């Protein structure tokens, strides 16, 4: 039994390694951007372990730089991280049997990257295994370690990366890489376009509230269209 656990844990680690390597530049860029925005290094490092959500952390550096009030930062992070509810819902049936302590631990480790490899693994392995939570643990811990280390490296090297390299553009490029494969159906595409166009129109709203408003418009548009499409003609 013990070696089976280890085997599942290791396969989770192995599946996550490519993504854990891919996030190293982002962790470093986040660390550098955080310093640049005026976040103290201990706060920036703590954010990587307390919030542990790359895109929300990137946006936070922008908000801190523009001295947006804390309450708005909290609301923006909450909306940006709302997508994790989707991951939670998608993994829930596979994790129904594990103890509450396991659920708490695995929820803490449930990032975009850990979710991506885990759901693929769960959908492919049809054998009902009582040990599959070890897979998510392995994937989650691997990404966690990489994120903490790369944040620290970014904080350390932050001052020496020249601004002319425009490394902040990797955020937009990452979002492109994540977004494009999601646009498979009409409601998804509509949600993205509605949110994007709204974001441009309301960009000058104070406190970067435009992101929140645009996301909500996109979600409502996509949902509305999906419900309309479902209705029999």
């Amino acid at each position, binding site marked *: 039994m013990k070696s089976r656990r280890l085997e599942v844990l290791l396969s989770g680690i192995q599946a996550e390694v490519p993504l854990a390597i891919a996030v190293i530049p982002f962790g470093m860029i986040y660390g550098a951007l955080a310093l640049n925005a005026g976040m103290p290094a201990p706060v920036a490092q703590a954010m990587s372990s307390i919030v542990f959500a790359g895109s*929300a952390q990137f946006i936070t550096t922008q908000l801190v730089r523009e001295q947006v009030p804390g309450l708005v930062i909290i609301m923006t992070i909450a909306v940006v991280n709302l997508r994790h509810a989707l991951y939670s819902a998608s993994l829930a049936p596979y994790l129904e049997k594990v103890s509450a302590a396991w659920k708490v631990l695995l929820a803490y480790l449930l990032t975009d990257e850990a979710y991506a490899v885990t759901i693929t693994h769960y959908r492919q392995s049809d054998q009902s295994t009582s040990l599959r939570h070890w897979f998510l643990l392995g994937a989650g811990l691997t990404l966690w370690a990489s994120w903490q280390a790369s944040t620290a490296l970014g904080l350390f090297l932050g001052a020496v990366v020249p601004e002319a390299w425009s490394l902040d553009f990797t955020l937009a490029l990452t979002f492109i890489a994540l977004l494009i494969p999601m646009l498979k159906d009409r409601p998804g595409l509509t949600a993205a376009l509605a949110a994007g166009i709204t974001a441009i129109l309301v960009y000058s709203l104070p406190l970067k509230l435009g992101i929140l408003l645009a*996301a909500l418009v996109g979600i409502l548009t996509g949902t509305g269209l999906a419900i309309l499409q479902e209705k029999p003609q």
Partner: protein
Amino acid sequence: MNLWLVLIISGLTTFATRLSFILLYGKIKFPHWLEHSLRYVPPAVLSAILFPELLLHSGQLDLSLGNVRLIAGLLAILVAWRTRNVLLTIAVGMVALWIFSAIL
């Protein structure tokens, strides 16, 4: 507000979001529209952040060829669409940005 307080509250909301369905599965029946709307959170949030990054230049809409981020971004969109490869998308986009910045 103190940044530490912001971090802790944001950590808790993020954690609660991640735990939500895992903990409540089988105990609560969620309404149909909620399931639907969750599916559109990622594209909406990503686009809300991405569009201004590509289309605005110092807060102004810039659709000209001189907007190197837009040109590099469009190239990256093409790569993402054809290959679905995250690292390749980022690599092509960054190299394109550097080249266009140098020549335009």
